[in-house]
């Protein structure tokens, strides 16, 4: 039998935020009349120390066993007040927050009478609910020191190194044959202009050398089961047909390989062989034979590379490996894909040779790139005299993506500067909507580009690009929105500043790990402000561009945040799960099997004709409870009785 509820109700003025609209005196007078209310008070700021003291004092003085605070949204201060109860020896789950700010005083500012009525109803509902609240015991699960990091780009690399250095075991899984990710493709990085690979390569090497890091390249996560402290991961590693240990990177195989295919690392501006190394600094430093393009993996078909290989590193019998890993936490750093502008007719990308993407330009600018650093226009391989940048391709546009990709402005400015450095006489013009230079040193960098380098900036969206069939020169039509006049100018080369989009693989991971994505397809954080690297799945964190567009420093910062997040989960050795899981009443359940497949986390199983819920897997959504035709399932803290108690009080009689 639950003891008679003694409820303390606390009305927060929140300065004038609440009290400015709602007549607290009247509200207080009303609240005092509610059943089970032992004491009711009001205070300017309940969340402040003195405010909290009121509650602490009353808990003992009035032997309170339930507390209601009428203030802001529970999303903000529920944890704060729960802590108070816990410290004063009352179960924190006997707390209820009445949201009279976000959902009352702030939305009915011109209607104080109604606002007061709503406050009365809301508090009445909360008080009624507290009577039905139950003592809940948070669950503890053991957590070890093993992390899985998905994605070997700069985010994955940084997170791996931080965790490894802190003494945790890291399994780093990368889908391509080498780590390094998108950053490895970049020439220089804004605003510091330091060479991308110069800062990246050392980190890649230390990953490969680190005793605590187990690296799986050319590999993908296929399945994850279990929960924090007990994830079972299946990784599938594709065959490279080259023994990494034996390969000396002598390149003899490449000489003899008869197959040539576009080199994706160079944005398809150059060719590579079927056997190749993505780029010289690749880690692991080894060739890989891609089977789609190889003539046949057997001496009969070709076998030239095998003959050519001195150290006998070739192994045509190599096969896919399925690797099983047990890990305690997971960091998702699957990165991004550059936006593909082929579908935007106005730019004629793919039709007009001299319309290129910023990534193609980046590769051209790179000394070890396809043009060894020369900027050439694809149609005639001549150096362009006039270059036009088109901003926000695939960003800030309802037809493509609404969000801002955050890096395009700066990399465009950076590339423009590089062009001017190489060819001061070149005319470089950037068509922009507005230049977003918010980062450290960005504004200066942009200023300098315009002032000292003479990069031209024209405000306006490019409406269409036409081509002169004879000389393949391009005509850019746009509106100068500053002058408000249409403008049309001829140019030799157009660079599309393409945005950042989630990778194709991200969708797989979304399904495997059951972490939600936002409308834009990037992974959603548990709380946009307070938990930016956590996901709703305990023990799964996100880092880098997988969580949304960002530049390198932000990606690294977030990676480090994720790493420390993972540390704080693993270091204590145990993890406390919110007791918001659902329970099956064994005396009711008849094992109809309705609930099992409804659970998004496979937390429900059938054990001798009864449903059984794995508390660690359950996230407490309550879908099974509402669906249970027997009424046998009870989701903690949102039980039928609790919700019904609110329903019954909701309508003022």
């Amino acid at each position, binding site marked *: 039998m639950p003891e008679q509820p003694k409820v303390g109700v606390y009305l927060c003025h929140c300065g004038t935020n609440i009290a400015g609209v709602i007549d607290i005196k009247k509200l207080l007078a009303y609240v005092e009349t509610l059943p089970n209310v032992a004491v009711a008070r009001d205070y300017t700021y309940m969340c402040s120390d003195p405010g909290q003291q009121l509650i602490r004092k009353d808990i003992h003085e009035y032997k309170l066993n339930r507390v209601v605070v009428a203030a802001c949204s529970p999303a903000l201060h529920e944890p704060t007040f729960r802590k108070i109860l816990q410290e004063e020896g009352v179960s924190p789950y006997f707390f209820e927050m009445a949201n009279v700010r976000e959902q009352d005083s702030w939305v009915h500012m011109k209607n104080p009478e109604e606002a007061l009525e709503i406050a009365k109803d809301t508090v009445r509902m909360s008080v009624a609910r507290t009577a039905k609240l139950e003592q809940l015991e948070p669950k503890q699960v053991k957590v070890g020191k093993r992390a899985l990091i998905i994605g070997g780009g700069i985010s994955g690399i940084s997170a791996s190194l931080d965790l490894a250095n802190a003494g945790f075991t890291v399994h780093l899984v990368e889908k391509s044959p080498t780590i390094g990710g998108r950053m490895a493709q970049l020439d220089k990085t804004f605003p510091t202009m330091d060479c991308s690979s110069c800062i990246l390569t050392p980190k890649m090497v230390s990953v490969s050398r680190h005793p605590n890091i187990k690296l799986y390249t050319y590999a993908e996560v296929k399945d994850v089961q279990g929960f924090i402290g007990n994830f079972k991961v299946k990784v599938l590693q594709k065959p490279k047909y080259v023994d990494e240990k034996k390969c000396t990177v002598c390149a003899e195989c490449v000489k003899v390989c008869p197959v040539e295919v576009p080199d994706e690392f160079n944005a398809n501006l150059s060719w590579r062989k079927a056997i190749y190394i993505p780029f010289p600094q690749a880690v692991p430093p080894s060739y890989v034979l891609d089977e789609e393009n190889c003539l046949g993996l057997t001496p009969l078909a070709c076998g030239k590379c095998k003959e050519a290989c001195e150290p006998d590193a070739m192994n045509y019998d190599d096969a896919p490996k399925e690797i099983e890993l047990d890990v305690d936490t997971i960091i998702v750093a699957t990165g991004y894909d550059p936006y593909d502008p082929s579908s935007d007719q106005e730019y004629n990308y793919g039709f007009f040779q001299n319309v290129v993407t910023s990534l193609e330009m980046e590769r051209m600018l790179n000394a070890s790139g396809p043009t060894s650093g020369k900027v050439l226009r694809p149609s005639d391989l001549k150096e362009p005299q006039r270059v036009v940048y088109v901003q926000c391709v695939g960003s800030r546009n309802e037809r493509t993506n609404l969000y801002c990709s955050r890096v395009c402005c700066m990399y465009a400015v950076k590339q423009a500067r590089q062009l001017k450095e190489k060819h001061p006489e070149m005319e470089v013009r950037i068509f922009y909507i507005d230049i977003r230079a918010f980062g450290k040193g960005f504004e200066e960098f942009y200023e300098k580009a315009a002032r000292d380098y003479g990069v031209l900036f024209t405000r306006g969206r490019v409406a269409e690009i036409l081509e002169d069939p004879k000389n393949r020169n391009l005509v850019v039509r746009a509106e100068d929105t500053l002058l408000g006049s249409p403008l049309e100018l001829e140019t030799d080369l157009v660079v599309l500043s393409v945005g950042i989009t989630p990778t194709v693989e991200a969708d797989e991971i979304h399904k495997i790990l059951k972490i939600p994505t936002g409308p834009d397809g990037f992974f959603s954080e548990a709380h946009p402000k307070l938990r930016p690297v956590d996901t709703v799945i305990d023990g799964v964190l996100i880092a880098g561009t997988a969580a949304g567009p960002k530049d390198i420093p932000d990606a690294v910062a977030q990676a480090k945040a994720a790493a420390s997040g993972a540390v704080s989960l693993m270091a204590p050795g145990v993890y406390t799960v919110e007791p918001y899981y659902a329970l099956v*009443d064994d*005396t*009711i*359940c*008849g*094992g*109809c*099997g*309705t609930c*099992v*497949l*409804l659970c998004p986390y496979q937390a429900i199983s*059938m054990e001798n*004709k009864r449903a059984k819920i794995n508390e660690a897997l359950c996230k407490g959504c309550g*879908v099974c409870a*509402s*669906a*249970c*035709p*027997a*009424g*046998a399932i009870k989701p903690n803290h949102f039980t*039928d009785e609790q919700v019904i108690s609110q329903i019954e009080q909701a309508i003022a009689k």
Partner: protein
Amino acid sequence: MRAVSQPKLKLAIGLGATCSGCDMAIVDLAEKLTDVFKAVDVVFWPTASDQKLEELERLPDGSVDVCFYHGSIANEENKEIAELLRKKAKTMIAFGACACHGGIPGLANLTTTKELFATVYKETPSTENPDFKQPSIDTTVSGYSLHLPEKFDTVQCLHSCVNVDYFLPGCPPEVPLVEKAIEAITTGKLPEKGATLAPNRILCDECPRERQEKKISKIFRIHQTIPDQEKCFLDQGIICSGPSTRMGCGAKCIAANMPCRGCMGPTSKALDQGAKMIASLGSILGLEGEESMSEDQVKQLVDQIKDPLGTFYMFTLPSSILKRRNMTQK
């Protein structure tokens, strides 16, 4: 069995608006359980023997140990009798689906006496009633006034009319349940008041069919398919109320290869059997490929269920949350 020395237990069997199937069930019981009946003394059972109402009225209040009341409360007379029996009986047991939940006749709560008269005394094709004569509460014939008890617009289950101590569900209640109940009564081993004298699990528990984890894409009506006798009806796309229905009936309909329609009513944890069926079917129907389903596809999907109310509330409309159809709607 109880000691012979004890005084026989005084049992009354009362009834309201009933099909008398419950009476028949008790007759069967008498056939099967003569020794159980030795322990009780049926002081009052109009269906089976002659008794004067006065005899019942004359009995001191609370002098009847137990009353099995079957049938629902559909008119003023039912109400009087129920109230009288409640006075006389120490323990009042709602016996059968009608008394417990309203039963199939409770579907009359979809209509009103007015509508019902129009159909029965006018619209039915064999009725010859040009000037729409209809039964009236008081009629004067050759100088004498004949009275008809007024039919209520809303059929009630027993506990919405008098205080009920125990519920014995089923249409009609199956022998083993009644036997247990009488056993409990005679040995004074009744649970706490308000309890239902049947297991609180759902039918699936005693259903012998093999089950899978539930997902349905197409609904079949019973006449449209020949169900596999070994497999769960729902797994075959045939609506079965078993998952929302209390066990204890012995799953006889299932054994006859017919799905459950819920005559035992819901468990103690389910407030509204129909709502629960909607929640569960709504969840498992179209589960596969739900992500790629358009609003219209969802509508088509649920449109396969033609009569949710009649199917999911076949026996429990009067005890459901809304109890009846709202007639004020224009």
